[in-house]
């Protein structure tokens, strides 16, 4: 039967001995050393190549030949970058990576737009307007994401030839749309299934149909997932190599294909600094997107989960 005072019993003055307050924690504990140590060691592993790329690309060739790839340039020069962009030779012509860059851009934009448009509509239809067999088609689609592309390479060549699109920009755009479909449809379907069905029902009661619900209600609400899809596609399509090399002609080669040609098919003197500059240039676009988008990128890959 304790007294009902607000503070409970008052503290006894005798038994105050012993520990009080926050437990002292050593910063340099064994556990912390292990954790941060592991992370730092691996961080070095991850950062090293970037460092090397940048350093090499800023050195003149004599300095490169001197040896240490980890050492910063004594004399910084941007000449390798200029050369990579404008003068590097790929065996066919010597106007640098800029050609490949613009090819990649021209491939990228329609591919991203088309693939996302188609896949978002797919996801939308699969969530709110299911028809018989829809899920079966979707399952086949998903399987297609896992099986090796090699098995479908040639039939697509035939299809594109029949459509007169083999070797053209739009042929490649179509290919990217087709192969982007599984992951993106999954992405959109999962996102749309988190939208309460009541919203959809209310719109139908209001008289809206398939396309108007999509355009006027769903799309404005889905900005985040569209951004994630864009990040996913830009990264995937920019970095693509296989489709670029199979379905285009040399004057349409994307940057990745051109890069490989510049570096690996050059006879004679290898200009390592130009090569590294070229490599960096090719990686720059997805890297910038990565650093800018941060958490969204993580979300994208966790949802996409299958690359290349």
């Amino acid at each position, binding site marked *: 039967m304790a007294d009902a005072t607000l503070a409970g019993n008052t503290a006894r003055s005798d038994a105050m001995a012993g520990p009080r307050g926050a437990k002292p924690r050593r910063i340099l504990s064994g556990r912390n050393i292990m954790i941060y140590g592991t992370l730092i060691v691996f961080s070095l592993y991850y950062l090293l*190549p970037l460092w090397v790329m940048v350093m090499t690309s800023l050195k003149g060739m004599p300095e490169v030949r001197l040896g240490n*790839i980890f050492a910063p340039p004594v004399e910084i020069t941007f000449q390798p970058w200029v050369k990579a962009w404008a003068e590097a030779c790929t065996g066919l012509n010597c106007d640098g990576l800029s050609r490949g860059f613009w090819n990649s851009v021209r491939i990228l934009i329609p591919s991203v737009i088309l693939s996302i448009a188609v896949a978002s509509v797919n996801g939308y239809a699969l969530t709110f307007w299911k028809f018989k067999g829809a899920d079966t088609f979707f399952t086949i689609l998903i399987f297609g994401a896992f099986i090796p592309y090699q098995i479908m390479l040639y039939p697509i060549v035939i299809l594109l030839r029949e459509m007169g699109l083999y070797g053209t920009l739009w042929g490649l755009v179509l290919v990217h749309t087709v192969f982007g479909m599984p992951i993106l449809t999954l992405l959109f379907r999962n996102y749309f299934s988190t939208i309460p069905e009541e919203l959809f029902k209310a719109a139908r009661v209001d008289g809206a149909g398939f396309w108007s619900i999509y355009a006027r209600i769903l799309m404005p609400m889905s900005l985040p997932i569209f951004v994630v899809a864009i990040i996913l596609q830009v990264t995937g399509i920019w970095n693509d190599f296989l489709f670029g*090399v199979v379905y285009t002609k040399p004057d349409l080669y994307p940057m990745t294909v051109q*890069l490989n040609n510049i570096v690996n098919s050059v006879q004679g003197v290898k200009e390592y600094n130009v090569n590294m500059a070229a490599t960096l240039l090719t990686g720059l676009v997805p890297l910038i997107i990565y650093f800018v988008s941060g958490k969204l990128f993580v979300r994208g890959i966790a949802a996409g989960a299958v690359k290349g």
Partner: protein
Amino acid sequence: MAAQTRPNRILRNLNSKIAAIPMVLTALVVFLGGTLWTVLYSFTDSKLLPRERFVGFDQYERLWTNSRWLISIENLMVFGFFSLIFTLVIGFLLAVAMDQKIRYEDTFRTIMLYPFALSFVVTGLVWQWILNPQFGVQSIIRGLGWTSFTFDPLNNQDIVIYGLLIAGLWQGTGFVMCLMLAGLRGIDEDIWKAAKVDGIPTWKTYYKIIIPMMRPVFITTLVIIASGIIRLYDLVVAQTSGGPGNASQVPAMYVYDYMFQAQNLGQGFAASTMMLLSVLVVLIPWAYLEFGSKKHG
């Protein structure tokens, strides 16, 4: 009340069906149709163009007696085996480290994940440079005093595959770390508390409780990694071009080279069919595990 005719089944939900045409076409024509077509024509002797002369298992016999193909398979298995193990282990360990409520988590994650944003070509080329015997790691260590140090995997037929492995791990482990971290974070915090009250040390909690709970994540990650490994192509083309000689050939290269350069479509079809089979071997049991039991349950 006027009698109403029931709308034709096909016309019901017409807009949706029209909108789904691309998906249906893709699924049926490209994925299903394309796959079946290739498998079918792998039984022909197509050379430059597809030919309908069926020759039974001829292509497959030739495939499996081709040393280049055998090397490809061996390389893929070695690469696949080590890649799988190391990626899972490293990815998991890093995820555990990241899960410990550390500071600078975002910084570490940014550093670990950026390689994943790069093309395999970029990865291959930069590691080719780093492993360059004249200027790269070997020369640096030699410069530090160990003059007989040798580390030249890309010119050594026996260990070139490990040079590729280093590059592959560099690109992929950050991604697996993210998947694992998401899995770890999905575990009910109360489980940790219960284990602490029970007095279970942290490592044991991971080992006996958390990891078993993460089985689905591990399996999914495994399937994703496996399907990526089969497709190994860009990295090899960039880093070693399949060399030295044929030492780092992989099946995907075999397919491309025979299909588009050696004018031997039949071989290319056979090789890609083998690739498909190996994926199905992994995929079908997993699909059954994930989805089949739910249907029959």
